[in-house]
């Protein structure tokens, strides 16, 4: 029998919480209750929408008046941001994020940078997850020689400090296309995820439902992908999100050092690199891209944490003492009334 907490709560709670719900709905329900994660999800969605639609993507135009390369010859306000707050209501003006030394609109540039950073992050996330899951699953499931080989490979990649290898890669690929950069990053960052997936498979393969499936006649592939994978989806999703958050910062750092996205391509880190010398004179050039990096990283981290809590069956919300006392009084009152 598990420990006191789990047993006592299971006895009292068990059916109450989960009646008639599939796992997806339960997880969603728990996620929604995690305030920080929900707020982050909303903020992130809004941000992404703005980022994508404001200056448009590819051939699709956006609604913002300036494009990232337009040069506005009239320097307004000494290039300072024209964003003002009359009380709470903001008025945006022509250049809410200001202008840089040659007159380009910082808002547009930041949006473009955000788009590129997002692209890199998403590509990297997808590839790293796919590779990591497959390698981890096979290593954990088959164990033995295959596991050894795969784990040595993982160790080799881990042995190289991330920033070092990505810097080298960045120098080679970064100047070409951001998409390529994202893909290559993905091919380098899967070991962490692989390790975790492997651990999941190592423990799950011992569970009886795997034996039951075998006796029913299931083959290896079926067991790996149809049986065990759905049970590890929690770990995968959570860590994929955290990986993406790390990737955002990593890409920014690399671009800042000059090894990632380089001019004329624009990314958030590249912008900071480009503008770092003007920090004392035009600090807004530095603030806005950094701000967006933080927004992305923070919201994704918090969402990841919310997902982690939502997937973990042990995480029961222990209520606040105040809440409990209030309810106790309410209950006592109703009893007296009866």
């Amino acid at each position: 029998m598990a420990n006191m907490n789990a047993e006592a709560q299971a006895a009292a709670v068990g059916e109450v919480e989960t009646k008639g719900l599939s796992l997806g709905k339960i997880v969603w329900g728990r996620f929604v209750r995690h305030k920080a994660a929900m707020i982050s999800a909303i903020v992130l969605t809004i941000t992404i929408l703005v980022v994508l639609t404001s200056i448009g993507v590819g051939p699709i135009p956006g609604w913002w008046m300036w494009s990232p390369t337009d040069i506005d010859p009239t320097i307004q306000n000494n290039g300072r941001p024209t964003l003002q707050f009359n009380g709470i209501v903001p008025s945006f003006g022509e250049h809410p994020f200001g202008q840089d030394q040659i007159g380009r609109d910082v808002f547009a540039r930041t949006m473009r940078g955000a788009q590129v950073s997002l692209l890199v992050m998403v590509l990297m996330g997808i590839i790293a997850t796919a590779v990591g899951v497959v390698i981890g699953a096979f290593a954990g499931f088959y164990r033995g020689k295959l596991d050894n080989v795969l784990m040595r490979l993982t160790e080799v990649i881990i042995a190289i400090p991330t920033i070092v290898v990505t810097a080298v890669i960045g120098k080679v690929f970064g100047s070409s296309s951001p998409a390529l950069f994202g893909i290559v990053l993905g091919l380098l960052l899967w070991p962490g995820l692989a390790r975790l997936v492997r651990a999941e498979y190592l423990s799950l393969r011992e569970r009886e439902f795997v034996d039951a499936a075998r006796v029913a006649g299931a083959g290896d592939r079926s067991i790996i992908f149809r049986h065990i994978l759905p049970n590890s989806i929690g770990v995968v999703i959570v860590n994929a999100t955290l990986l993406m958050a790390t990737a955002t910062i990593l890409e920014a750092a690399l671009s800042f050092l000059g090894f990632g996205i380089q001019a004329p391509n624009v990314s958030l880190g590249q912008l900071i690199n480009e503008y770092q010398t003007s920090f004392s004179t035009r600090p807004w050039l530095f603030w806005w891209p950094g701000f967006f990096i933080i927004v992305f990283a923070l919201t994704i981290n918090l969402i990841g944490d919310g997902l982690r809590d939502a997937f973990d069956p042990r995480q029961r919300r222990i209520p606040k003492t105040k809440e409990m006392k209030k309810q106790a009084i309410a209950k006592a009152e109703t009893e007296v009334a009866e």
Partner: protein
Amino acid sequence: MSPRKSKQADAAAEAAHEATTASGTEAEVMGAEANPETGSIPVIGASHEVKPGDVVLDVEGLNVDFFVDGAWVPAAIDVNYQVKAGEVVAIVGESGSGKTQSSMSIIGLLPRNGRASGSAKLRGRELVGLPQRKLTSVRGPEVGVIFQEPMTAMNPVLTVGFQIVEVLREHTNMRPEEAKERAIELLRLVDIPEPERRFNSYPHQLSGGQRQRAMIAQALACDPALLFADEPTTALDVTVQAEILNLIRDLKTRINAGIVLITHDMGVVADMSDRIIVMKDGRIVEEGTSSDIFNKPQHEYTQALLAAVPHLGSTLATKDPDRVPKDAPVVLEAKGLVIDYPKQGRTPAFRAVKGIDLTIHEGEIVSLVGESGSGKTTVGRAAVGLLPVAEGELSVVGVNMKGIRKHDLAELRKKFSIVFQDPGSSLNPRWPIGQSIAEPMQLAGWDRERRTARVGELMDQVELPRSFRNRYPHELSGGQRQRVGIARALALEPTLLIADEPTSALDVSVQARVLEIFTELQREHGFGCLFVSHDLAVVEQLSDRIAVMKDGVIVEQGTTAQIIQNPQDPYTQRLIAAVPVPDPAEQERRRAAANA
């Protein structure tokens, strides 16, 4: 040596002044007194201040609630009972009955969202509502607790000896050397061999039984007046369980404490208790002396509970040795079967089954009985192809399993199936149960229509509503989940069914129901069955023949009647003697016969 006043005496004095007593028992402040049982080291413990027959625990109107999802859910309602020094009170109930929660709440060990109200007086001192800081001086010297899982209940990085010594040094003024001596005494008291050496052992270096003994020693360290034993033997093998029960009964007479035994096992209850309290859904439904409850149960729940408990020897009269024709086809045949358990990480491969002979005919139920490590589960797994045959012969449904090729095994798998022990983990938590039941058929190539129809049929047979097919395992109770497992096993009309401890993880009444369904189905479908279990009473109920395993070999096999009534091998005899029978009078007779 001059008596030394210990912290315990101070606390007792404080308690005496604070206590508001109903029954008028006041704690006496005493100087140290040598306990003749444990040697000349002076220790103050509450048990020395208590005479046999004194009321040690007085529970009145105890309520326990848990705050879940915004509301208080009751776990125990209006619990009343008393425990006297030197007596064993058993609190019996199934999961969810509130037996553990009510006891834990008395000593303040509820989780943060639990609360207790009402009264529980330990030697006149009110415990409910006492702040944690005061409770720490009560736990240990006044109350000891023995938990169920000794492996996880002890700190793995501290030695066994240290964990006992720390209790002693916390509650008394003993010096380290004195505490060590006393700890070794205690280890000796609980019959741990080589106590000096074991003092420096870590918990994982001890066997299950020894760990539990160490826990008992730890709980008794400060001579408490009350002992809570929460399922102390459930995690142990039958023979080990018998030893531990003997120990506790022995201690009962020597240490003069009241014991609250919390358990669901009626056999254990019959063996140990003076008084019994039956709980269901948080309430006490019946209480009385041991013989009252067992012989004249009043409440219908108690009656149902007792009826559901398998009673060794009770079904022998109904056994028909010719139920299965002698010339029925053989579905499983093992000759000199040897199976090796593969290397798992650090633990090397070892020989789990060392050569057994076993035959199962179509339509008969043969049980394989043994304790943990006997190899019985290994045989079951080899029969379904989960483990390879190392040496000897094993033929299942006429096909030789040794060195069988993957393709042939896949074909063969349509002819047999297995029901696992833990219904919680033998169903994929992410699959709706309908899909789990249908899996064997889907892998055998049945089309969707046929599958759906058959799933419905099977669910009817195991008496589950068809509407459950889209539910997930966590939404079903243990018994329902196990029925799903049975349905899945029957999907392809197997000729041989392996049942690996299918009811060990279930409550007694649920177990009875599942076994009933299982027996019916076996009669109907006529498959041969290898029933693996450690529970002789359950095995007796449904099997035609029994084989007893120990250390990888079959020590004895024969018809059910033969084995139960007339065991030849000494191990079998020990095994049967160790099974607690849910009848106190009979249990006493057996004990007397065993000790003679």
